[in-house]
């Protein structure tokens, strides 16, 4: 074999050997790969329910109010209610007296010290910072 042929064969062997080495080294890395996925969607918040129509009855200078719970469409009752009072003759809003003046967490309250007059009431809903629309007016009641 001539010197040129021998050197050629040396190159061939060297290249073949070296090609095999990294194959063995790289293969373990294939087991560590990870892939990714993506997607989009939406989260919908609920509509704040309005209050329900209250019933009102009078005992002396007190007015007892009751209403049914207002619920979210997705389930769950609202946390609290606000009572609104109106002069039934003029339609103007007036301050609610003690017993129903703050947020009411139940579905009833009794307003005391109600001045003489004819009044009707509505209920608004509250959930933390959310407020809902007032529901229908109650029948008018007269305090004498």
């Amino acid at each position, binding site marked *: 074999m001539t010197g040129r042929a021998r050197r050629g064969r040396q190159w061939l062997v060297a290249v073949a050997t070296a*090609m095999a080495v990294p194959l063995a080294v*790289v293969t373990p890395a294939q087991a560590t790969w*990870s*892939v990714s*996925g993506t*997607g989009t969607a939406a989260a919908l918040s*609920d509509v704040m329910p309005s209050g329900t129509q209250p019933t009102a009855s009078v005992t002396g200078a007190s007015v007892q109010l009751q209403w049914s719970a207002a619920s979210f469409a997705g389930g769950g009752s609202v946390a609290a209610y606000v009572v609104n009072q109106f002069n039934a003759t003029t339609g103007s809003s007036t301050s609610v007296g003690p017993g129903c003046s703050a947020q009411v967490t139940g579905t009833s309250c009794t307003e005391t010290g109600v001045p003489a007059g004819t009044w009707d009431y509505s209920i608004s809903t509250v959930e933390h*910072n959310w407020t809902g629309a007032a529901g229908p007016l109650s029948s008018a009641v007269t305090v004498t």
Partner: protein
Amino acid sequence: MRVLRATLLGRPRTAAAIVVAAVLAVVTVGPSAATSHALTGVTYAGEGSSVVGPGGGSGSVPFTSKAPPRAFSISGRAAGLFPGRSESLVLHVTNVESFPLVVTTLTTTVRGASASCRAANLAARTFRGRLSVRAHGTATVAVTITMSASATNACRDADFPLLFRGTAVRPS
């Protein structure tokens, strides 16, 4: 000159050839590994490999391939949220590959519903675990999504866009 010629044609030159060929081989093997897993379109990273030839030389070629948008898709929907309320956000993971995957993380990014109802009003937990999804199959997992108690009226009847991102591995 005769001495120099002997050095070039002798063992040192053979060693250099091995090193050069080894580096070339690594460059070739990296991308072909991606192709063999049919991950075209998926971004993935393999670990870099270092090769040391008999002549003492070395080469290091990390490989990264950009590929299709995804190996799996994620969808989900939540509704009925109001201040302080937590709901289950059910995520559906669909494997578009022809081999099974194990999903290890699913992250939800919330976008604001409007200028006055910002993303901070909603928080979704990240899934970390092992969710197996068969080839071309779908699996579901639920994460909790909560609306802040301080969300204002601007967040009533709002629509928060959600972006999902996940990672998965191929089970060995």
